């Protein structure tokens, strides 16, 4: 669709898409934070944010709580520590944000809604997802704070380690669908398998089933969520790499953290759960329903992540590395082998 656009139309298209994506990220963060607060509250026998009475308050059931939070962050004083490396300190949140932003651009929200459909889609997503770690290290180093440095180094080690099992389990998907194109991957998951189940990759064979869990666990680790939240372990490192940040700069970290959750869950949905395909083929399957199914699946996975966070304790640094290198990596390698044999002899 881009071939016959003039350069002005190109520019307009870019700006429009950028604004839409930014809006999506902001709404996603607002909604996810609200969900996080409310869900944690329900899991912990609390009410969570509740607005009551007249005057300024957080709205019915605290719906405006995150809006108020965002306002507070915008109005907050911007503090840059005197010892910090100013340029790096300022640029770090944007690096992380850009990493999340360009990843979200390639996600297929439905059959027709996708900002840019590149034929290397899933490869591109895996590649740009790891861009954020540059920002993390920059932030941790530039803050000139020992705690931030610890957080940054931990997260660098963690994200790099977990990318390997994540990528290896995506290879399973590529092997089964023989395409790197996101829409192509989704299209190949059409129909029914084993009689009743939708023909999603996760149900394709036992190895793919395992691959989904490897990917999802690695995804949780890549987004620094509990039980893998050691880079910002609040009871050890207080806040890790973003300890020294405040106001809008901090909000950018926050925004990209939730955007990263969305991306990881989005990739999992596309690669394993049939993207915008309906779970029952032919049922509510056309047009805008794709949007519904895609967001439904992504939000469910985000819910699972939130559920994890309020249930599990946190692993230790070396245990976390142990999980990545000693458990997930061998399993992911075996998986590739298994899928190869499966598609050769059975599938």
């Amino acid at each position: 669709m881009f071939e016959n656009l003039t350069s002005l139309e190109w520019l307009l298209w870019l700006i429009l898409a950028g604004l839409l994506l930014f809006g999506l990220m902001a709404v996603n963060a607002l909604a996810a934070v609200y969900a996080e607060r409310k869900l944690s509250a329900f899991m912990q026998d609390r009410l969570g944010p509740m607005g009551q009475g007249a005057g300024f308050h957080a709205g019915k059931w605290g719906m405006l709580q995150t809006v108020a939070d965002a306002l507070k962050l915008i109005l907050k004083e911007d503090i840059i520590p005197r010892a910090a490396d100013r340029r790096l300190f300022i640029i770090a949140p944007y690096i992380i944000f850009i990493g999340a932003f360009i990843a979200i651009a390639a996600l297929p929200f439905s059959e027709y809604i996708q900002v840019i459909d590149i034929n290397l889609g899933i490869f591109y997503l895996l590649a740009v997802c790891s861009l954020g770690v540059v920002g993390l290290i920059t932030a941790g180093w530039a803050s000139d704070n020992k705690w931030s440095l610890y957080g940054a180094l931990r997260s660098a080690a963690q994200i790099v380690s977990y990318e390997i099992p994540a990528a290896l389990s995506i290879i399973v998907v590529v092997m089964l669908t023989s395409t790197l194109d996101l829409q192509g991957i989704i299209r190949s998951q059409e129909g029914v398998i084993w009689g009743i189940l939708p023909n999603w990759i996760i149900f394709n064979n036992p190895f793919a089933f395992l691959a989904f869990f490897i990917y999802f666990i690695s995804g949780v680790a890549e987004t620094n969520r509990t039980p893998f939240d050691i880079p910002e372990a609040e009871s050890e490192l207080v806040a890790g790499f973003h300890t020294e940040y405040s106001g809008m700069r901090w909000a950018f970290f926050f925004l990209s953290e939730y955007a990263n959750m969305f991306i990881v869950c989005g990739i999992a949905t596309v690669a394993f759960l049939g993207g915008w395909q309906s779970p029952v083929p032919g049922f509510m399957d056309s047009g805008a329903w794709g949007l519904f199914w895609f967001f439904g699946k992504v939000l469910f996975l985000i819910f699972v992540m939130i559920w994890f966070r309020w249930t599990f304790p946190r692993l230790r640094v070396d245990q976390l590395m142990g999980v990545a290198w000693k458990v997930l990596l061998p399993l992911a390698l075996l998986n590739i082998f298994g899928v190869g044999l499966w598609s050769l002899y059975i599938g």
Partner: protein
Amino acid sequence: MVLNIGPQHPSTHGVLRLKVKTDGEIVSEITPIIGYLHRCFEKHCENLSYEQVIPYTDRCDYIASMNNNFGYVVAVEELMGIEVPERVEYIRVIMAELNRIASHLLALGTYGLDIGAFTPFLYMFRDRERILDLFEMTCGARLLYNYMWVGGLSHDLPVGFVEAAYDFLDYFEPQVKEYNDLLTYNKIFIERTADIGVLPAEVAINYGVTGPNLRGSGVAWDLRKAEPYSVYDRFEFDIPVGKGLVGSVGDCWDRYWVRVQEMLESVKIIRQALQKMPSEGDVHAALPKKVRPPKGSIYKRTESPRGDLGYYIISSGKPVPFRIKMRSPAFTALCVLDEIARGWMISDVLAILGSLDIVLGEIDR
């Protein structure tokens, strides 16, 4: 690299500063620096009458104020030779044990928080709240009670207390299973605490570590059994000791587990005390007109939730004590930190610190 953990840090359980020498994530030396909460408790006591000291004892270990009151009044009563009515003794035991449960709930909850589990903390606080409600019902205060007086109590139990206490116990016992399901036997929790920070029994004894920390190392030493004070000799209960169920004896998990079991033992004691408690009796009957112990001194120790809480009181025959010294179990527990946490990772140091369950109000006094 030298890292300062604290004095403002979420996992130091108060204003403690740990000067930690690290090599990457590995900790090679830990120096606890205390005194940020020093309020001259012992010096103050030399200028206060014996009754006025009681609210100060509240503020030492503010998590277990009833037990602090208890130890102090028992010591002064023994010095003066006062026999308190039986009902008073039973009420004191009930309060002390309820307070022990509340204290352990807080210790376990914040320990979960140190490990990174947020939800058990709130569950335990929810249940602790019910104990605080019972205290509020009894003496109006929720944290600093000033409830036990020399020779008696400030108030008798209010109407409906016994039923409310039974209600709480019936509610609480099944809750322990919930904690176990959510935290105690969680795989990640066990990974983080089993075999970590092992405190061998002889090291614990050499350092004078007492309470659940010592029992976690497998030594069945509990003053309620070993040197029964008040009416503790009339109750049936066990002393849970660390058995190394998931790791080795004396690791963080054992110290944690001993506290869980102790809560159940406290429930047993409270049930028996509620049953045996005489229903009549004036809690003010034995209050002395003037608290003026004869010349002499006494060292009396009681089992607080943190261990062996001792008061050394020297009386010069005046209404003001000549000297009061408090032996703090949390202080000795902190002393052993460097010994058992050296060579572990930063995350482990905080896990070990949490498992020792220190209260800075008591360490600094």
